[in-house]
């Protein structure tokens, strides 16, 4: 159950962390981008091959790792739960690739795999170095995507996050209804 060892935050620093830990991922760095069902503005390579690049030097990691530690918050656990609850969250199964974002270390791109309404994998098909290597980070705690939802799907909601309501506003709020109903 302890799949969560590292707080994942693939901010720039997180990506850098990945580099640092590539070695520990072992040789079989699998490729996660099977890229189904997503069309559109995808910059960069979504390699679907099995580029099992063996580890190269960690030169790139050396310098930025200072910033990695600086902004890495300590790892408490995270959201990746393996429960098979089905997709009431509006997430469809498949692998989806985000557009590349340029960071000060180079372009970074993530692909997420959704299964059963949950993110089951986050991969970084493009990252600085530009070698087209893929890194799978499934063993780390997975960040939960905020999924959009259909209208007022208040059923089964425990808590409501929203711009601060005042004490007066609370009475009309969805949270108030939940507090009373539960």
């Amino acid at each position, binding site marked *: 159950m302890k799949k969560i060892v590292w707080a994942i935050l693939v901010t720039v620093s997180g990506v850098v962390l990945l580099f640092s830990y590539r070695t520990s991922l072992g040789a079989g760095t699998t490729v996660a981008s099977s890229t189904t069902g997503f069309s559109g503005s995808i910059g960069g390579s979504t390699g679907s091959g099995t580029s099992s690049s063996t580890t190269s030097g960690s030169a790139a990691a050396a310098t930025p790792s200072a910033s990695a530690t600086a902004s890495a918050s300590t790892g408490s656990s995270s959201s990746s739960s393996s429960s098979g609850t089905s997709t009431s969250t509006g997430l469809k199964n498949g692998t*989806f690739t985000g557009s590349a974002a340029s960071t000060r270390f180079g372009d970074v791109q993530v692909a997420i795999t959704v299964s059963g309404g949950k993110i089951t994998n986050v991969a970084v098909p493009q990252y600085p170095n530009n070698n087209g290597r893929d890194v799978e980070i499934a063993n780390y705690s997975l960040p*939960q995507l905020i999924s959009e939802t259909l209208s007022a799907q208040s059923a089964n909601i425990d808590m409501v996050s929203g711009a601060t309501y005042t004490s007066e506003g609370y009475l009309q709020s969805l949270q108030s209804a939940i507090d009373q109903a539960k």
Partner: protein
Amino acid sequence: MSAELHRTVRVADVMGMVISVHVLTHAPTVAGVDDATADAFAELRDIDRVFSTYRSDSDVSRLRRGELTLAAADPRVAEVARACEEAEAVTRGLFSARFGGAFDPTGYVKGWAVESVARGHLGALLENADVAAWAINAGGDMQVATAAGLDRDWRVGIADPARPGQLAAVVELRDGAVATSGTAERGAHILDPRTGRAALGATSSTVVADSLAVADVWATVGVVAGIDDLGWIRECPGRSGMVIGAGGRTRRWVSGVEVAAAAGDPFRVSA
């Protein structure tokens, strides 16, 4: 699967907002739950007494008037002042607790207070095997935790800024924090520290993070930056987030990188 869970809900009006604590237990009543919740509320009232800018006799008010030094104030004020400085540095000035020269940590205190009170008073509840999970929601910002091994997530709805009482999104998490800043409920009350004007570039910004203090700061940053500028997410240690702008335009990000929306985007479920 977990068997049926019992839910204790306690609600209190503190710091000008309503705070809800939910504790899930395996037994109908579990000793210690009510005390922990009451202690959490009591400490929040005490923090309000020290930090409220609405109370002329609070430490922060006296500090602002020059009647008190930081060294002589409640030690938590210095702790918060330090944290505010750090937040200003890591957000590159998109968050600031000293706009206009006067120290006003209000934008930081809420998230920090709720998180520290939660960890201090609710955190230990999970040491009791009868307690399954707890959550504290303070005016829309929350910290939650779940016992190891329990197959259950907290389902958190993100309020739709354009449609009161309805949700724009849902996020599930076992442990961590969700904060949302925006203009929907209280109007344009967030100032852009760079200009001193109201931040209007986004109606809502949500950040999911380990820590509520962190999530709260960065959610505010998202509103200040506006929906056209997601540059800050690279520096943000949050797990994921969402920004909503005019006309319901939505951008989402995971781990510092935007998850793009495009035509035919399977993420997008049109309402």
